[in-house]
């Protein structure tokens, strides 16, 4: 068989353009459905695992899928919010841990690193998701945050650096200002959407939203360069200049000046994760909120199952089209191989006349096809391995 492979390799190399075309066509035929299937399976298992680990989500009425996508995967924004009062209602239920979530902002995009969602929550979230810092520590003070492992990697930020929030509307001067947050740590990779998020405490999230704020001391004494106009005698009446920071930063010096206006029970949350201790607690909690018109209380595994049934139908369509394309490509490939055999007929005839055995002729042709197939399969497997890590994430981005 060595000679057959030797001759086949020399022949394929001699006709390398044709061989490469056949190999890559075959590779695509193998790679496409296989990778799609692997990616979908991975996507399905990842999305299901996250949903299964999150028994109940409480949020404002609206799309159930949007609420799950928001609270589990930090995607999409609910049209309306709930308040701390609803969180308190869930939290006071016996046998339930209620974890508040506020996710309405992202970090500012940098070249090569898109902004990540800023999740305002409480320390219970880290316990619930089993998130531990890989370096540094969890945020403890107002204005501090911890980064998910993937975001830290792609943004190049780490413990001790700062990260800016992105305003939702740059033209709204009275609205949210970017907040510069101190990074106190980077979380260990969790292979979940947590890896691509920035976590801070609820109060910091409210500061970003403009509910809480501090005051930058702009007067003649602190830094006259910040003043655009200070010609009036009234020390309290100054006009701030361009040197006034266009963002907020909570430092040791100004931390005490930060405060919140309004009733704390009305501060907004985008969702509440509820973790009942037992099945009985879960049923009781669902029953407690089932009649509410202001809230919806949903079970993520059920919602995800509905979503996956839609994905499954899409998968069937995609596979059907892929199979049809593969069928057409295989027919073309058969034509190419047939033409190739015809082109090599004279060569085979020469070998036959010299005394080549029938088996060798068969081996020569088989070695050709085998080399083409194994090369294509090798490329398809390599492509599959490369795509495996990214395809599921890409699918999540596309489908969620």
């Amino acid at each position: 068989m060595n000679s057959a492979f030797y001759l086949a390799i020399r022949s394929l190399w001699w006709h390398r353009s044709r061989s490469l075309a056949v190999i890559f066509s075959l590779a695509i035929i193998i790679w496409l459905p296989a990778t799609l299937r692997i990616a979908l399976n991975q996507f399905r298992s990842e999305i299901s695992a996250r949903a299964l680990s999150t028994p109940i989500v409480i949020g404002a009425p609206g799309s159930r899928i949007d609420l799950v996508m928001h609270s589990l995967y930090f995607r999409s924004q609910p049209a309306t919010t709930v308040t701390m009062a609803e969180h308190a209602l869930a939290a006071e239920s016996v046998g339930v841990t209620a974890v508040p979530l506020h996710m309405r902002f992202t970090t500012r995009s940098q070249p090569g690193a898109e902004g990540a969602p800023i999740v305002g929550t409480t320390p219970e979230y880290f316990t619930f998701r089993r998130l531990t810092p890989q370096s540094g520590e969890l945020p403890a003070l107002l204005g501090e945050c911890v980064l998910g492992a993937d975001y830290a990697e792609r943004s190049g930020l780490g413990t001790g650096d700062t990260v800016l929030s992105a305003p939702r509307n740059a033209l709204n001067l009275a609205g949210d200002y970017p907040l510069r947050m101190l990074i106190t740590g980077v979380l260990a990779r969790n292979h979940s959407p947590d890896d691509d998020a920035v976590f801070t405490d609820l109060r910091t999230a409210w500061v970003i939203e403009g509910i809480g704020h501090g005051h930058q001391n702009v007067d003649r004494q602190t830094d006259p360069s910040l003043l655009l106009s200070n010609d009036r005698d009234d020390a309290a009446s100054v006009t701030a200049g361009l040197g006034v920071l266009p963002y907020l930063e909570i430092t040791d010096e100004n931390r005490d000046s930060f405060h919140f206006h309004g009733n704390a029970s009305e501060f907004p949350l985008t969702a509440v994760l509820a973790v009942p201790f037992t099945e009985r607690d879960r049923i009781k909690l669902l029953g407690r909120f089932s009649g509410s018109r202001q809230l919806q209380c949903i079970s993520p595994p059920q919602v995800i199952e509905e979503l996956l049934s839609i994905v499954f139908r899409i998968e069937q369509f995609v596979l059907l089209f892929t199979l049809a394309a593969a069928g057409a490509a295989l027919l073309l490939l058969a034509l190419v191989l047939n033409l190739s055999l015809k082109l090599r007929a004279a060569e085979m005839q020469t070998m036959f006349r010299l005394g080549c055995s029938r088996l060798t002729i068969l081996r020569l042709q088989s070695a050709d096809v085998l080399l083409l197939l194994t090369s294509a399969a090798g490329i398809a497997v390599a492509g599959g391995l490369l795509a495996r890590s990214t395809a599921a994430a890409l699918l999540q981005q596309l489908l969620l």
Partner: protein
Amino acid sequence: MIAIRDLRFAWTDGPFQLQIPRLEIARGEAAVLAGPSGCGKTTLLNLICGILSPAAGLVEVAGTDLGRLSDADRRLFRLRNIGLVFQDFQLIDYLDVLGNVLLPCRIQPAVKLTPAIHERGLDLLNQVGLANFSQRPVTRLSQGERQRVALCRALLLNPLLLLADEPTGNLDPENSRRMVELLLQESRRSGATLIMVTHDHSLLPMFDRTLPFLQYLARTDGTEAGASA
């Protein structure tokens, strides 16, 4: 070396018929089969080397009755004992010069490519003046160089019999003469019997013997093709 008795062969779809009551060619003899193109000379070569089987009669090469061999054994016998040179040389484009010479050792599991055979391939190339061309693609050879590569391939396994099927068919007179000289020289050097097919009568005096090929032809309607030629 070759003994043929009462050989009969006919194509099923034509009037062509070959009848050879008796033909013997001695070891080391250089014989030529002459006749116009398409008259059946190649068919006779194919019968002698076992590519075709006769309808009746005996074809014996080096004491072996080819009719008694199985198809697989006939192929192996041909590879080991008969060197073939084709009209257009039929070199394999994707192999280099040495690869083409060594080809007979890559097409039969029973014939292994040993270091000794590899050495012989290089030696043959050296003998025909192609020692420096061993790694060169055959597509970059001149017609004369291709002839010599084809001859080296035919001689690789020290054949007892060398069959050359119109190797001068596409050559000008000067190159034709050189090719025949080379065939005669190499067959004599190796002690092989040579049978060459040609339609070029000017080459006949170079051979020991011209076979009376037209006498072997008959038509199915009973008329002797040779008689009318």
